[in-house]
């Protein structure tokens, strides 16, 4: 089943009288259960693509379908709803709210969806168990290591059972061992739960662990290769 489809997706920025084109014309199709790495050098357009896929930004032209809905046509509030229900975000800097405990951080997207607090909390605890952080549920982010914070962020990305998880340099701040642990968690979610995962990374070691690698350069996809199973 096709989860995401982009047709001639483009994004350019107007800065004074110069127009900078960050993304030229991307045609992309992502199916249910895929595990994709988007790679490219700095300035290749991979972050812009990630923002467009995550509905954090709107394209200058082209179409963007999530589960068959053309989100390029939606209003700000409708996009907020799409982000809430269809997309789970994982960031390089974890982006947990420092004043909230792990369980409350994970439950937050559930509250924005309109689920009551009690239910949201109990679901959040289950997901923290899944990422092996059940024992740290009531701790605050500053009491945790980077790897633990990232696992809390992954639990948060999962809580609304999204169509896709978008991870922007999720291992950029982590050491090698922790990086592998996080990637193993993504693989586990992908194989066991069938979650669709898109990782943006500039590290080849990380990209090679996905099932499919998209390579961007100057705002265009220059290669789209399947990774042979190890």
């Amino acid at each position, binding site marked *: 089943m096709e989860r995401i489809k982009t047709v001639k997706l483009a994004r350019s920025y107007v800065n004074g009288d110069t127009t900078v084109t960050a993304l030229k014309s991307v045609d992309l199709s992502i199916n249910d259960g895929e595990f994709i790495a988007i790679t490219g050098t700095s300035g290749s357009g991979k972050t812009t693509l990630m923002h467009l896929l995550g509905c954090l930004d709107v394209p200058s032209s082209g179409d963007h379908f999530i589960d068959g809905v053309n989100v390029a046509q939606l209003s700000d*509030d409708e996009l907020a709803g799409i982000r809430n229900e269809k997309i789970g975000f994982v960031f390089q800097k974890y982006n947990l709210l420092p004043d909230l405990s792990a369980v409350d951080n994970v439950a937050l997207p559930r*509250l924005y969806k309109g689920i009551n607090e009690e239910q949201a909390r109990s679901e959040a605890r289950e997901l923290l168990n899944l990422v092996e952080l059940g024992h740290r549920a009531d701790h605050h982010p500053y009491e945790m290591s980077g790897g633990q914070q990232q696992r809390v962020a992954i639990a*948060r990305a999962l809580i609304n059972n999204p169509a896709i998880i978008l991870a922007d340099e999720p291992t950029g701040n982590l050491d090698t061992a922790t990086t592998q642990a996080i990637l193993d968690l993504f693989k586990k979610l992908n194989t066991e739960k069938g979650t669709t995962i898109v990782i943006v990374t500039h590290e080849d070691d990380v990209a090679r662990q996905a099932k499919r690698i998209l390579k961007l350069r100057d705002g265009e996809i220059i290669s789209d290769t399947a990774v042979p199973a190890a």
Partner: protein
Amino acid sequence: MNFAQVFKTALHSFSSHKTRSLLTTLGIIIGVAALIAVKSIGDGAKDRVRQQIESTGTNFVLVLSTDPKALQPRNKNSLTLPNLSLKLNEYETILNETPGIALGSPGIFTRVQLVYESHNRIVSCVGASEHMLEIRNWPIQEGISITRHDIVGAKKVALIGQTIAKDLFPGDTPIGKTVRINKVPYEIIGLLAEKGRRADGFDEDDVIMCPYTTIQKRMLSVNDGLTSMLFSLKDRSTMSQTTETIRSILRHKKKLAADADDTFTIFNQDEIAKTSEAATLALNILLIIIASISLIVGGIGIMNIMLVTVTERTREIGLRMALGARKNTILLQFIIESIIVCMLGGIVGMLLGVGIAFSVGHFLGWNIAINQSAVAIAFLSSTLIGLFFGFYPAKKASNLKPVEALLER
């Protein structure tokens, strides 16, 4: 996200920045405290003035000499220049020809040098007849009052007020003591009951009272001349009518032309009450304006800090949007935060204002009642200020673009 959850989020964010929240709300605290304290103390003052007017005497008409041409040449014994344009025969004519008058007393007000042992000071001296104290509803605490005999003979006798008694004769009776007034010995025959301060701050207990004839002949060396006349009425309801009768008799006696101004001023108690009420009202309005300005300034302080907060928390706003917060949810969160800050400031300010009002009341010995409508208005206005001055920063927060907010460093 429902309202209770948004409220909880706002409260949480408020309580994680306690010091800043408190500093933010300082303007509101001061404004609300000022509003409540000012209104309550103002009411206390009004009450106090009303009591004083009542205690001055229940119904009287006071005629003051205000003829600008009547200033007396400086007398060697007198320290001031009393305006003596009112004459005794005018007083007697008024007393005899005005039907509504019950009692009357001529009055002379001057300043004298009072010496007793090592005490030497300038005090106010009131010349009066035997009826003055009755008209003014002012009892004698100890000793006797001035008599007709003292007035006819211009006797060297004096009544003294409580302040002078405490000063000159601490712990002792003043009755029978001899003091020197302008170097002449006088016998103290009576001690006046405590009267308190007038609304203008004049201490009514810091006076000497002598027969008016004594002041005329012995202190000022004049044969005639009064600074004032005081009359009580048989019936208070005839006050304005009696006032007019007195005015026309005086104008006639003074042969004033029809277009000439009065050379005297007549006060009656109703007018005094009206004047002081108008003054209190004006003062109240002024103070409320000042308190309102400080509330508005406080509100601008809130807006300022909220704008800083929005800038500081741009990443948080971006993240919340990424996680699915709608514009209105963000808007509501920041407005509620602003209202919480202001309401808390309102509560603290309220307690502070009540405390100030009671402290001032205790210090001045006034009865202070906390003005409930002032409390309600202060609380309501602090909430509205939170809403009004919080709206713009909240709107700014909710209009952020998710991607730009998230990329903010």
